[in-house]
């Protein structure tokens, strides 16, 4: 445009030129959870392209893992997906146990299961709550967070921290279920259900909510597989895949639960899948608790492992179903007390790379909805 047209009458430049506004969203943006960044090109309100940029929370966890011992790395796994730290802990512990060729005692497995499902509920609560906040409904967030506080209290009484739990140890768990859990669980179960009901009442059938979510970012199942989706994102697309069912670990084959699947992979389906999964998690906890009650008080909680863990040379990959999907730990050991290489397969990494495909052609508001429904946790995304 700086060129001067003195005599030329009409210049038909490409219409694309400067018609698109580059809108930078993030890293510090209310919907970007602090560290994500999307550079969008918009035509009015429609998104022409959206390039996610990550790495704003790249803390070098994998490199750090190579320099810490197996035990020392456990607290670091908390900081990956900080919404459900326990799942990370357990995944890592199980990976190392697999590397060692041992398995935790059954009672410890049940405790792990219970705690993991609690963490799953907490994670989904945050995700649904934030989705609500980002779509303008603040109140459900507060109702859900309240229940999460109660879950945190159980965590705190079990292993001494609210968020970065560092639960258990390699070879088992270090403490039995706390008294708090026995007291609280029956009440907590109801109140979680109540909070979910309230959220449901406030959102699900509200036409504004339906308009905002149904058909937004709909995604095909085979595309999702091609992109490497896992977890609720994949299930919302109609693919019934859940590692708890497909590759049962711990004692998930002994409990009975459903895997809710969606149909269109739109935001509404993701939301519903998460809501229903919370219910399933409650069921799992109930059953696991029943199983747990069969064990005597002093049933072993730990396998005997040496203080300094030195697994044999070799490499393994172990994955569990974290709230966001397949969370895998690849560990290569060289026989020393430190892992030679740790690679974490974070679920939302794979989902987030498809972000442009997810939001292309939709609107700016849908981008926000999409992002919160993916539940990208920067800690595990960037590691």
């Amino acid at each position, binding site marked *: 445009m700086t060129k001067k047209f003195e005599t030329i009458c009409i210049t038909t430049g490409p219409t694309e030129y400067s018609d698109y506004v580059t809108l930078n969203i993030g890293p510090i943006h209310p919907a970007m959870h602090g560290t994500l960044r999307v550079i969008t090109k918009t035509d009015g309100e429609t998104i022409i392209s959206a390039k996610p940029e990550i790495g704003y929370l790249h803390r070098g966890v994998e490199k750090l893992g190579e320099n810490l011992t197996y035990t020392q790395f456990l607290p670091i796994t908390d900081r990956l997906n900080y919404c459900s730290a326990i799942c990370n802990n357990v995944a890592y512990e199980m990976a190392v146990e697999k590397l060692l060729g041992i398995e935790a005692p059954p009672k410890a497995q049940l405790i792990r299961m219970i705690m993991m499902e609690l963490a799953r509920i907490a994670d989904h609560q945050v995700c649904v709550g934030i989705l609500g906040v980002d779509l303008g409904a603040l109140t459900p967030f507060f109702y859900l967070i309240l229940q999460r506080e109660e879950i945190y209290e159980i965590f705190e009484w079990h292993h001494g921290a609210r968020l970065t739990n560092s639960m258990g140890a390699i070879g088992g768990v270090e403490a039995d279920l706390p008294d708090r859990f026995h007291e609280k669980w029956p009440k907590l179960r109801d109140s979680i259900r109540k909070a979910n009901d309230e959220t449901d009442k406030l959102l699900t059938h509200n036409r504004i909510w339906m308009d905002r979510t149904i058909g937004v970012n709909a995604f095909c199942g085979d595309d999702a597989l091609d992109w490497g989706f896992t977890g609720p994102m994949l299930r919302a697309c109609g693919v019934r895949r859940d590692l708890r069912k497909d590759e049962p670990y711990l004692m998930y084959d002994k409990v009975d639960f459903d895997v809710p699947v969606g149909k269109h992979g739109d935001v509404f389906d993701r939301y519903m899948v998460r809501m229903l999964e919370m219910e399933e998690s409650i069921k799992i906890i109930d059953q696991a608790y029943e199983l747990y009650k069969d064990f005597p008080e002093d049933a072993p909680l730990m396998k*005997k492992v040496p203080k300094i863990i030195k697994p044999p040379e070799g490499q393994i990959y172990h994955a569990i179903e974290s709230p966001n999907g397949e969370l895998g730990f690849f560990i290569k050991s060289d026989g020393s007390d430190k892992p030679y290489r740790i690679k974490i397969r974070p679920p939302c990494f794979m989902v987030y790379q498809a972000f442009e495909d997810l939001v292309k052609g939709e609107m700016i508001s849908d981008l926000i909805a999409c992002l919160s429904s993916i539940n990208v946790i920067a800690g595990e995304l960037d590691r």
Partner: protein
Amino acid sequence: MVRRPVVKKEYSLGERVYLVEIAKGLGLTWKHFVFNVKASFRKGPHTVPTCWQYPEDRREIAPIFRGAHMLQLNDKGQELCVGCGMCARACPAKCITVKRGKPAKGEEDKYAGKTMCVSFEIDILRCIFCGLCEKSCPKNALVLGQDYELADYEPEHCIYDKDRLIANFHRARSEGLLKPPPVPIPVEAPPAKKKIAQKGDEKKGSSGKASVKGGKKSASNRKGEA
């Protein structure tokens, strides 16, 4: 281009007309509103039952909560720490520095062990409160207390030296917030086969897996009996 499944929106009449569901939602928030307004006229700081009004109204902290560190003394008032440095080695954040030393003449009965720590510093700003130091301490000298009000204006004040750690202990004792002694964890007896596979076993890793499976089965069998 992106493929998108066609989504047909099927709304019931009640959903189509915005107002019905909004009215339901309004009813719900109203219920909360009335409940909390009523509650906020109660006496005392803990009015709204779900909200802990922090400075006046504190939540109960788990005794095993991992808060600020303290160096424990035993019942005789002797320092337990022997300055072995295990905690420093176990710390992933490398925020503990311990210097070992011998107690000065005539002060031996101040210390439980033969040696003591001359200086003990924890950079609490770096600490991630993981509790590994506590777990690795052979004398149960270093524990993480329940104190969480740690904020400070200057970073220099956040390096806890020995005196401060012991003072923490005294305060906790006076408030009755001492950490309970650790409960022993029931440990499963090691299996007959030596668990840490020797170098030779490596290639036959699958057998290790099989044995694990067997263990699992036995566990479930036992449950069946119970």
